[in-house]
């Protein structure tokens, strides 16, 4: 009986070790923050690395002294305590002042980057981003284009409880949407982020942007993707927003300025046409209702 249980246990362990090694490559590539594809995201990465190395340096020093004490001042090695060593003003002042200096050294570049991040002037394109339970709505304010973006079908089928679908077999499992958010590269895109029902958070790691989508508030954020970095970028909602919080990904489709202009023009025409057969005055709501259908056919 016990042997059988042990056999089961060792099998389970072996199986998990096997799975681990099978994944080993992706695991070791997933250790650090992304550098991203914007100037700001790189600045953030460098701030992150700078504070990280400062922490490592302090850690080496402090842990070094601790380990030295643990190794050398053992009673078992006959260490005799120096009970007079209870106070040392010089050392205490030093280890108060040095951290303050380090913090100032760290705070200055952080503040600079923050000022840059908060500068939402001179933007070239404004998109209203609305989080809802559970998806995102993108509204190109100046161009009459608006659509919804939700988890794609394949992920949605696979993520059901005991769906029987192996998530490994689904491309970009949980990180794919039906309609990606299309933006131009090399353009300062301003997001006006808000929430329709509860608080969500629009997070795109590759851009270094995370902004809460709060009902009744309009938050501003912006990004400018490198000219040579068109492509698909993936992120997720970052604020607990109910049952399907884990299932409202964000996909940005960054295109060249020309491709974007063409896409926007076509999309605007499509939405206008879709609205045309009905009452012309109700153009936007009609488009909205159509897009709101549970899962538009692709």
């Amino acid at each position, binding site marked *: 009986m016990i042997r059988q249980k042990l056999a089961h246990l060792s099998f389970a362990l072996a199986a998990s070790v096997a799975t681990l090694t099978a994944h080993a490559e992706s695991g070791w590539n997933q250790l650090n923050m992304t550098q991203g594809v914007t100037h700001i995201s790189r*600045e*953030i990465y460098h701030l992150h690395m700078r504070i990280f190395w400062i922490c490592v340096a302090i850690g080496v020093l402090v842990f070094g002294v601790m380990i030295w004490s643990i190794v050398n001042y053992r009673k078992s090695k006959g260490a005799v305590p120096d009970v007079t060593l209870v106070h040392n003003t010089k050392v205490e002042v030093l280890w108060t002042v040095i951290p303050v200096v380090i913090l100032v050294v760290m705070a200055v570049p952080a503040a600079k980057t923050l000022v840059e991040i908060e500068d939402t002037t001179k933007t070239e394109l404004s998109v209203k981003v609305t989080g809802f339970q559970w998806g995102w709505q993108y509204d190109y304010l100046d161009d009459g284009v608006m659509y919804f973006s939700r988890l794609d079908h394949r992920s949605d089928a696979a993520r059901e*409880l005991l769906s029987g679908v192996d998530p490994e077999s689904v491309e970009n499992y949980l990180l794919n949407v039906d309609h990606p958010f299309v933006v131009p590269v090399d353009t300062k895109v301003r997001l006006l982020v808000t929430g329709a029902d509860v608080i969500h958070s629009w997070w795109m790691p590759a851009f270094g942007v995370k902004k809460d989508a709060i009902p009744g508030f309009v938050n501003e954020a912006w990004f400018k993707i490198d000219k040579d970095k068109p492509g698909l970028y993936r992120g*997720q909602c970052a604020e607990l927003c109910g049952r399907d919080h884990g299932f409202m990904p964000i996909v940005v489709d960054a295109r060249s300025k020309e491709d974007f202009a063409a896409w926007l023009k076509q999309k605007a025409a499509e939405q206008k046409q879709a609205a045309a057969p009905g009452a012309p005055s109700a153009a936007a709501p009609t488009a909205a209702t159509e897009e709101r259908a549970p899962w538009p056919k692709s």
Partner: protein
Amino acid sequence: MAEVLTHAEPHDEHDHTPHGWRRWVYSTNHKDIGTMYLVFACLMFFIGGGAAMLIRLELFKPGLQFFDPQFFNSLTTMHALIMIFGAIMPAWTGLANWMIPMQLGAPDMALPRLNNLSFWILPFAFTLLLGSFFVPGGAPAGGWTMYPPLILQTGAAFPMLIFAVHLMGASSILGAINVIVTIMNMRAPGISLLRMPLFVWTWLITAYLLIAVMPVLAGAVTMLLTDHFFGTTFFTAAGGGDPVMFQHIFWFFGHPEVYILILPAFGIVSEVIPTFSRKPLFGYETMVYATASIAFLSFIVWAHHMFTVGMPLAGQLFFMLSTMLIAVPTGVKVFNWTATMWKGSLSFEPPMLFALAFLFLFTIGGFSGLMLAIVPADYQYQDTYFVVAHFHYVLVPGTIFGIMAGVYYWLPKWTGRMYDLTLAKWHFWLSTIFVNVLFFPQHFLGLAGMPRRIPDYAVQFTDWNMVSSLGGFGFGLSQLLFPYLIWKCVRSGVPIGNRAWEGAHGLEWELPSPPPHHSWTEPPSDAVIARGCAH
């Protein structure tokens, strides 16, 4: 003296321990109430831990294998509430009950009946909270932070959550009042404030924090209650309210709360490290002032929990700088503990092992805290597993290990028996190894982009989640050694003298083990105080 003699007879009667259930239900004795607090905390630690095991089970691999996402959200919400309000805070109050009168030369806590009340509120609070698993809509699933509007979508559990929080808050406030009154009035003659042990000092400051912020939490949840049931719109934008205001109020409570959870651990570590270094604490007064500074700063850093809500630049800069400033007094404490070991004579009994693990691993949690203070970087860390790793490093190998160190330090005093040291070392090594396997990879997950509070994840996060889950199961199982070890100690530990540890100082070690029903019926003599309160 004459008076003492004339009252000797009835006084002995009074000392007689009541038996049966009355001893516990009607208890006004600080040790019995302390024991009840600790047993309750241990029970909640295992219930909250059970929730954590289920969370790690679902997260073992991608895809949903066990739970509906809504139930998963209930698990994360309840895990936090149970661990914070059910396990850690009652454990600290239990330790305060046991130790403060003994360490101050007092017979008991100042307000014994209040003490009874503050404990017996808790079982009702947690019956209410845990009962919410069985009502329509399930247990609260909006996160322990209870952000509106989401929390207003809670089903029948909503009022249960609010009233449970009220009860926990009332219990904490009563406990805090008792601690303050005891420390201010019950110190034996000759024990000035700056002669008190650091555990008492840190608890005194913690008690003030509790009294300052628990009413704030109560106010916040009351506004949620009226928003839900009475048509107010404190936090509803459509009615002119402000959902972000809740976050400000909540974190004005929430950040000092973080220090409520950790300060007593600082106190315990400040007692354990000198004992097993056979050397007085380095910079006693600096430690007191550093603790007070941390407590003060804890009131002006709250918004660092919400850098992404869209605050004005000046606000973000202020909260970044104030948060970074906390690293200074905290650093001073870590340096002082290290300096206490310097040129000491160290031995490595279980309390010292846990205190050392605290020292290393809490510092790692401090480092990630410093990283989180950098606002632009926080935009990438906020609400990811990096934050989960950070606060679990400060709360598990920080607070929980602090509690373990305290229990292993004083258990021989409480029971009069020494526990199985080898088994306790096993408990230590398994806990320390697994806690790192459990939480260290979560730093990687967060940096790689995994949000927190999600029941399922993209496949590239699989490896580290598996490692983390395996560490979690190992850590959870290792904790079963702890109650077994205590049970074994109580039943068959080797009887031990007054001073359980060679280097132990403090008035509690001047009492017999186990101590008498009323700890100090006469104030300790000057000689005893001089021996016990030597820093």
